[in-house]
């Protein structure tokens, strides 16, 4: 990510989120990432790690910094139903945008919002057993969000 884009992203985040909620780290290295906090409507707190290696040319890889569990208490495994790429090294990679739909216009703030929606879907899945895929399709159909 070049400096101009980084400044643009920082300016957006500064208007949307409190400064203690996010942190750019290791910029200029292949491990460049944004740590960003997320609190769901059920008041559970997660930290998302948004990798910036090829951003904005490609959709950034997003992990939760702690492993997410399925309804049986096991680490989430790669699954279409649960829209994730599995858990390894203590973190779960979530799917927030198919590569074919990505454009460099998408801001990190939008990625954050998509991940927030994913987390809401994940918590509904934990409560009800509905698949994240079903919930996301519902979001796309309604143009809204899963809690509606």
């Amino acid at each position, binding site marked *: 990510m070049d400096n101009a884009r980084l400044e643009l992203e920082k300016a957006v985040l500064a208007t949307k989120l409190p400064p203690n909620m996010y942190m750019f780290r290791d910029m200029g290295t292949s491990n460049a990432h944004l740590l960003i*906090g997320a609190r*769901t409507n059920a008041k559970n707190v997660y930290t998302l790690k948004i990798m910036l290696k090829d951003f904005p040319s*490609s959709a950034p890889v997003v992990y939760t910094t702690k492993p997410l569990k399925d309804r049986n208490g096991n680490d989430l495994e790669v699954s279409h139903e649960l829209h994730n790429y599995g858990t390894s090294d203590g973190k779960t990679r979530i799917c927030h945008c198919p590569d074919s739909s*990505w454009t460099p*216009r998408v801001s990190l703030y*939008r990625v954050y919002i998509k991940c927030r929606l994913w987390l809401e879907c994940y918590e509904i899945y934990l409560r009800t057993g509905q698949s994240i895929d079903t919930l996301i399709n519902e979001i796309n159909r309604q143009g809204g*969000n899963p809690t509606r």
Partner: protein
Amino acid sequence: MKCIYIDKDEALTFLYSEDNHIEGQSYEWEGEDVVHVHTIAQPHAFGHVTSAYWHKSVLPTAIPSQEQYHIVVFSDNEAKAYYVNSKFQSEECKVKFIPSKDEMFSRAKGILEVDILSDKRVMIIGLGSFGSQIAIELAKAGVGEFSLFDFDRVELHNLARHTCTIKDLGRLKTNAIKDAIIGKNKLARVDLFPININEHHTLMDKEVAKADLVICATDNNQSRFALTKCLLKNNKVAIFGRAVTRAEGGDVFRHRPGGPCYNCLVGSQAYAMAAEEITNRSQLPAYVSEEEANAMIQVGLSSDIEPICNLIVKLALVELSKGQNSGIESLENELEYDYYIWANRRERRHVGWAPFNNAKNMPTILKWYGARIAKDEHCPSCSSNTVLDLGEGLNDGVLSENFEGIELDTEE
């Protein structure tokens, strides 16, 4: 009578050398009475390989005993060739020359001024069914220098649409296409980069800077977006081409400095975002099952992508020879659109198009349609006034905005 093909450039090199005798190799297409003789061993030999002895003026006094061989003798400004069998019986052969550089493209003279192209460098990213055909067509037209990018190898499922053949199975596509280029233009200079361009942006930038033209024939937007950045930085022309689902159609986009970039195109109404043809597993998310992947990977026919490659080649030749009395100047004023769309069949995206036999003034299949794409004044790549997508409407006020007490997990 056997016919012996002699490489004229190799023969001249030998004649101007201090050597009176050298040993090379001959390659015989068995049963066809056709032999190609060379002063040096060829990298990918074909046919039956035997020795070839090259001589100036006189025959050698002793030739090692072996089953059979060929002899080429230059005497009195004439080349003669002989086949010698295992009983030392010789038979004179007919001699034909593989033309030298100057003669190689003589048939294109007057159609296309090939001298203009011999110093041009074309960078081709992606050597699949598109890139491989385009590379060879440009070599045939006389383009003299190439940089080829592809990390993939030739696999069985490629063969139906690829220029490579069964004998290339398992080879790096870069190497196989280099051989095909050299087969058409033996003096072409070809640099090979068997790497994933998405992981080597610095190298991509360096090579873009050296190229006269870039052809982007990849199957993903990640490489197209990354390339766009390099094109804008280096003020280079590029042509992007792709097929849409099952090659029911395709599109071609030309980026020129100062004009709309690939990102401007993607944000335009004309572009079909999700219609990309899926040709291999790597284009799908890892969690897609094998069954789903098999249903989603649907490729079209080679004849469906050929017209798209053909337009890319024409656009490339126009760009490479622009303003230089090339013989194809008239195309400069006609192929002036940024974006071109083609339909092979009236399916999916093109289902509403008119039937070919009753199209009247409506768009129909098997015809090119050009469009001008406006520069996006808020483009994230080529505008200094970028406006980002903040996802307005996604949240719709339902996600809690209570941020108090959130502590980042920085220990991961």
